[in-house]
């Protein structure tokens, strides 16, 4: 191989002799020098910001109640309300008196920040009834005086305890970036671990992608495009071909030699970044170094085109032009493919399934509701979704073999609490699945669950129940009222104005509020039960994210997990009123991660990111054991199988795995089972079937007992889906997916197989990184281009 190494090493010499290389290296050094002074320091999270409010409406309502309701004046909300500035206090009083008043969240943030300095509002007695997390309890036990930061931190936690369900879950530590020792004004309310994720999953990939995916690739092509045409100059080529070397290997050596330029630049940049984030941010991420070969690989895709063009036309200009056209083609195909993903295939993805008798109903990511039509062999639409993804649909729940309930939340995707009141829609087979409005759901309801003869509605922080009989009885009564609402909604859609709201949190618009008392309206704004519903959780319990909830289908128990607490509730003996806590457990590890919960027989399974899957006794919440998920996989979905059949865990690789007990306290993860690219799973206990939506909207049915294949249903593509399936997808297949290599870089740097994008009130959409496909696609493309080039070069007379 000596002669071919000679060609490659000669390319190193040529690269080092190139002025363009030195200019590029100097530019890289300047960039690195500009980044080097970036630093950070950690501090306690104290000050409130607008983004810290999870439910602004609830905050406004709680403080308004504290302002006007004399009975709570000595309770935390009353004491805090009394500490509000005069202007804000006047507005809160107006809210309490039933007026529609718009208050910006930043005013609340400013007012609460003032409270951090002056804690005269605090009373130990008043706060004794609040739910206090471990951090606050520990701070309360520290001797006075506290350090200023700690004191402010404690004050913040006291405010959060006084106003449950109002705040986003923020880390105790904040990161403040600095440049050359000067602090940035912005502050990141994340701890070191989250900051590390932020840097690794977003900042570094963006830098790498932009600098290497665009700048260095383009620069590299400009510099190296002349290598092949220059080699083909008679005095150079004939001399090379007279040497005892293979033409094919000679060309390949020249090709790899051409990659040297980019290799040198990328190596400088990546190692520089690695050292800077290591020394300055204490993030020593060895995976960053993998970006070097990946970036060179990306460049080689384009350089293979340049090589073939240079061989055929023997012109640098043409080689650059053809490569640029190819780059544009990749971009256009990628953009069109992305548009189809966003507006065609994405919204059609089945997010939740419900089996109603013989009918399969699914809710889509686009906020639509569809029904499987056996005659047409495809999904037929029940509720139209919104391709722009502005709407959200509440997962359908089958009440009986003829009835299903759901709700469509307008503007729900980016405004999780919706822009108007939401009625529960009842659909029956008899009415051809036409949605008929029933009870009004509590404000900002996100999920609906079935528990015996009750329907549970989970909203921003509360859980309310309503009897199914009441729901069904309200169908007719609501019909006329809904017609009025539809008029309003239509106008709202046309104007694009989502009604009165403050910032993104929105305000529940209750048309019937005028006929109710001010307290009832405040209660509604606070998210507690509306008409027909009654609160299910004790007052000191609020379900703030990250949270999850599972209803035991057999025993009627309820399990919730919220902010690191796992609680088992039992229905009240009296049959009405709030449920009672029967068991409770605190969770270790990072409680800010998404959490999944499912029950199977007497076992409760909980899955969180970066933590082993934990198995609990459903009665006592004692941990029975744990199961490790393969590294780099994150849990995405979890369902329990009836009896002691175990669990089906969906992971970030798009596969399902079976978790089952193999011995006393010993659990095993097996699989994968079922199809790839799983979208959602539903267990139908009545038929003993597991329904799996996969590959957007295909269905596969497994037997519940042994998880063996039973049947599948592949919808016939029509319209845009037909275009996507038969034109866009093949075009994407034959075009190297250079854009997706960016995801590969993200995955490599973050060490994750998926990322979470905020896609709802609490749940993020987990997007799997495409690792294999882009690399395979680009590898095949490079192989084809180089094979063609080698054939051309070895058979052609020169």
């Amino acid at each position, binding site marked *: 191989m000596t002669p071919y190494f000679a060609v490659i090493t*000669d390319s190193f010499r*040529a690269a080092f002799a190139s002025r363009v290389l030195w200019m590029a290296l100097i530019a890289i050094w300047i960039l690195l020098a500009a980044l080097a002074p970036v630093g950070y320091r950690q501090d306690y999270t104290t000050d409130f910001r607008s983004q810290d409010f999870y439910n602004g409406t609830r905050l406004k309502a709680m403080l308004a109640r504290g302002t006007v309701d004399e009975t709570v004046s000595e309770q935390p909300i009353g004491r805090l309300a009394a500490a509000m500035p005069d202007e804000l206090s006047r507005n809160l009083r107006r809210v309490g008196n039933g007026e529609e008043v718009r208050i910006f969240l930043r005013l609340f943030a400013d007012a609460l920040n003032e409270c951090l300095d002056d804690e005269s509002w605090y009373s130990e007695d008043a706060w004794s009834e609040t739910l206090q997390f471990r951090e606050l309890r520990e701070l309360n036990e520290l001797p006075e005086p506290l350090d200023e930061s700690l004191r402010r931190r404690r004050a913040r936690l006291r405010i959060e305890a006084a106003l449950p369900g109002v705040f986003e879950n923020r880390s105790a530590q904040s990161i403040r970036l600095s440049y050359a020792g000067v602090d940035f004004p912005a502050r990141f309310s994340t701890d070191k671990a989250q900051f590390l994720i932020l840097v690794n999953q977003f900042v570094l990939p963006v830098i790498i992608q932009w600098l290497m995916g665009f700048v260095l690739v383009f620069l590299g092509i400009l510099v190296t495009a002349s290598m092949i045409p220059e080699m083909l100059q008679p005095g*150079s080529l004939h001399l090379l071909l*007279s*040497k005892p070397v*293979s033409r094919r290997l000679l060309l390949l050596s020249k090709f790899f030699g051409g990659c040297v330029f980019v290799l040198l630049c990328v190596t400088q940049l990546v190692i520089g970044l690695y050292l800077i984030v290591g020394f300055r941010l204490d993030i020593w991420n060895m995976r960053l170094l993998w970006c070097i070969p990946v970036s060179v690989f990306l460049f080689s895709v384009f350089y293979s085109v340049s090589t073939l063009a240079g061989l055929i036309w023997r012109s640098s200009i043409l080689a650059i032009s053809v490569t640029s056209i190819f780059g544009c083609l990749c971009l256009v195909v990628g953009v069109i493919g992305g548009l189809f993903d966003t507006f065609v295939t994405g919204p059609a993805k089945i997010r939740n399934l419900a089996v109603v008798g013989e009918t399969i109903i699914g809710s889509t990511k686009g906020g639509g509701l569809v029904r499987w039509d056996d005659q047409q062999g495809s999904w037929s639409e029940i509720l139209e979704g919104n391709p722009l993804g502005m709407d959200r649909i509440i997962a359908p729940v089958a009440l009986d073999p003829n009835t299903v309930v759901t709700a469509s939340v307008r503007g729900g995707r980016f405004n999780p609490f919706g822009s108007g009141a939401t009625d529960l829609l009842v659909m029956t087979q008899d009415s051809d699945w036409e949605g008929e409005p029933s009870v009004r759901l509590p404000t900002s309801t996100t999920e609906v669950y079935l528990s015996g003869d009750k329907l549970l509605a989970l909203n921003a922080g509360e859980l309310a129940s309503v009897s199914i009989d009441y729901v069904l009885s309200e169908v007719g009564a609501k019909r006329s009222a809904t017609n009025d609402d539809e008029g309003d909604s239509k106008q709202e859609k046309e104007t694009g104005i989502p009604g009165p709201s403050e910032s993104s949190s929105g305000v529940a618009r209750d048309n019937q509020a005028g006929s109710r008392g001010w307290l009832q309206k405040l209660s509604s704004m606070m998210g507690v039960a509306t008409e027909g519903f009654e609160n299910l959780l004790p007052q000191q319990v609020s379900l703030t994210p990250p949270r999850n909830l599972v209803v035991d289908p057999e025993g009627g128990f309820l399990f919730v997990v919220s902010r690191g607490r796992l609680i088992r509730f039992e229905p009240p003996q009296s049959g009405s009123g709030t449920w009672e806590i029967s068991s409770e457990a605190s969770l270790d590890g990072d409680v800010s991660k998404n959490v999944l919960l499912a029950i199977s027989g007497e076992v409760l399974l909980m899955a969180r990111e970066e933590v082993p899957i934990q198995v609990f006794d459903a009665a006592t919440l004692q941990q029975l054991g744990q199961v490790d998920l393969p590294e780099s996989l994150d849990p995405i979905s979890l369902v329990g199988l009836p009896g002691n059949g175990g669990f089906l865990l969906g992971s970030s690789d798009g596969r399902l795995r079976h978790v089952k007990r193999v011995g006393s306290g010993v659990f095993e993860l097996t699989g994968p089972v079922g199809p790839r690219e799983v979208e959602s799973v539903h267990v139908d206990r009545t038929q003993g079937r597991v329904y799996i939506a996969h590959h957007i909207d295909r269905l596969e049915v497994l037997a519940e007992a042994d998880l063996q294949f039973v049947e599948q249903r592949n919808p016939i593509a029509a319209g845009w889906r037909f275009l996507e399936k038969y034109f866009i997808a093949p075009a994407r297949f034959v075009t190297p997916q250079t854009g997706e290599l960016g995801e590969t870089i993200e995955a490599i740097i973050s060490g994750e197989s998926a990322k979470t994008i905020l896609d709802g009130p609490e749940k993020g959409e987990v997007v799997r990184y495409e690792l294999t496909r882009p690399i395979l696609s680009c590898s095949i493309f490079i192989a084809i281009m180089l094979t063609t080039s080698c054939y051309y070069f070895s058979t052609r007379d020169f």
Partner: protein
Amino acid sequence: MILKSASASEGMMDGEDEQVVVDVQQLAKRYSGWSLFGKKPIDALRGVNLTASGGEVFGLLGPNGAGKTTLIKVLLGVVKPTSGQAKLFGKSVGSIDARQRVGYLPESLRIDRHHTARSALAYYGRLSRMESTVINRRTDELLELVGLKGRDRETVSRFSKGMYQRLGLAQALMHDPDLLILDEPTDGLDPVGRNEVRRVIETLRDQGKTIFLNSHILQEVEMVCTRVAILSKGKIRGAGTVRELSQRLASEVVVFELEVSKEIEVSSFVQQIASQLELDSSQLDWVEGEGNSSVLTASLPDRSQVDQMVDALRASDISIIGLEKKRPSLEELFMQLVNDSGSDQE
């Protein structure tokens, strides 16, 4: 060692006991060409036969477009023949084994500007699969040979044309090849540069290297080549030593320097001698000089005819002051062969 060549019409040269270096049989190369009116193929080589054995300096001559470069490209495996076969050292041209034993200096050599003479020689040495230690030793030797010692660490971008050609020659010799193919090695050089390159070739010739020299500078070929082949319009028109060619292709010319003491009628005298020697009158050229001197140029292929001519002149009382036998120059032969091929229609 002796390198011999022959055209097909003349049959294979002898020398069975010598190693055959170049063996070309019925070699044809047709380039596909296009014009507005459709395909227009170009026959660069049309049945070339050439057999050369190791040892001497072989010159390939021909006018522009004769097919010389195509023939060299075929020998190097750069282009593939349309028909026929060509072998180097008994191996197919283009094979790595054959190329391993060939050194080549292209007509317009290009060496990347980032190289110095030393690094370029190391690069081409590695391309020829040489070991590092051998490369270092050969580099020193060759830099000495081509007169570039002391300039070996300068970038080649500063080299003159002559230095560039000498470096090219050194790289061709780097792996000590058995056959050296030089394509217009003195093209573009001034007389000093040509002399330098010629000196190197002569040194190599003295070392016993086989050299295949493609040139249209006839004087140079005549000076250094022991054998030549003349290629025109894709065919070998003649091959052998210059002497063999002249003997084969042209009659020996004898120039008589005369002193005529009496009045003679030149034209009738020439007619008389021609009939006496059974010659065509066109074979005799009488040119009167100053005074009594004249010069008679006669094409006399047979030595007895020279004797008869002397006898006839003396019988006519004409004094023979001088007598010189003259062979035709290579240029004359070249022109004759090329002109003869002018009427060759394919």
